């Protein structure tokens, strides 16, 4: 993946009231890149779920901690847009990546659906520990896959 600087970089507080702004940002950028309405909505949903997990589990619902959202459009060799990469970083406690799992959907109960939704919606979802403190979640969605209902690769990553 290119080391090019993010085209958009936003720092938000870990306050659930601002999730709507993050969704709007991702959805509007996705639309410009070429995603259809449902693709934009699904991308915004995945990012919302990822941010909510950071707030709820990473920061234990503290509302004054930082979360960074970085966005890159993806392009092919001809410069045509192919998708979107979104990286979400925090400075919450480290979590063992092996412990970030979807729950069994046969067990219908409130909560715990966020990771499942992220995996279902995104083509790639990779959790890793940041140096020192915090986690980094890299999300990738391709435009064509959005029309076919892509799913995150199950290669040991979330």
């Amino acid at each position: 993946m290119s080391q090019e600087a993010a085209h958009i970089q936003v720092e938000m507080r870990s306050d659930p009231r601002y999730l709507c702004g993050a969704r709007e940002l991702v959805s509007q950028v996705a639309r410009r890149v070429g995603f259809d309405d449902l693709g934009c909505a699904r991308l915004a949903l995945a990012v919302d779920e990822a941010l909510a997990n950071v707030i709820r589990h990473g920061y234990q619902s503290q509302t004054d901690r930082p979360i960074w959202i970085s966005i890159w459009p993806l392009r092919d060799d001809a410069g045509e847009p192919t998708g979107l990469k979104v990286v979400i970083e925090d400075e919450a406690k480290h979590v063992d990546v092996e412990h970030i799992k979807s729950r069994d959907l046969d067990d219908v109960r409130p909560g715990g659906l966020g990771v499942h939704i992220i995996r279902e919606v995104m083509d790639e979802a990779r959790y890793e520990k940041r140096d020192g403190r915090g986690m980094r979640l890299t999300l990738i969605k391709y435009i064509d896959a959005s029309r076919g209902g892509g799913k995150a690769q199950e290669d040991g990553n979330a």
Partner: protein
Amino acid sequence: MPEDRAIEIGTTREGETSVVTPQGDIDMSTSPGLRAALRGESERGAKRLVVDLGAVGYMDSSGLATLVEAMKLAKGSGATLVLCRMNPQVRAIFEIARLDTFFKIVDAVDSAKSA
């Protein structure tokens, strides 16, 4: 955190049927308001709880969790919970979470009142 004003929730009652109508996005910040409204109608003894989602443009897993909880509460008290007027984006999250068959989902409020 101050009360979130991004959602308004209306409620109408006809006999033992309550129709709860949230308006706005249902996410982590607004789902507690919906949870309180649904719980309140259950505790009032509603035998049929209709959730009209026609004015909901967005729902995340916290909204789903709220509805799952309300459904379980309703079943536990012998009541029925029906969802209606979902837009395609909202319906998509039910399908992603494979909860579209767990809930009774109909198109119109009138159908929900008799479903």
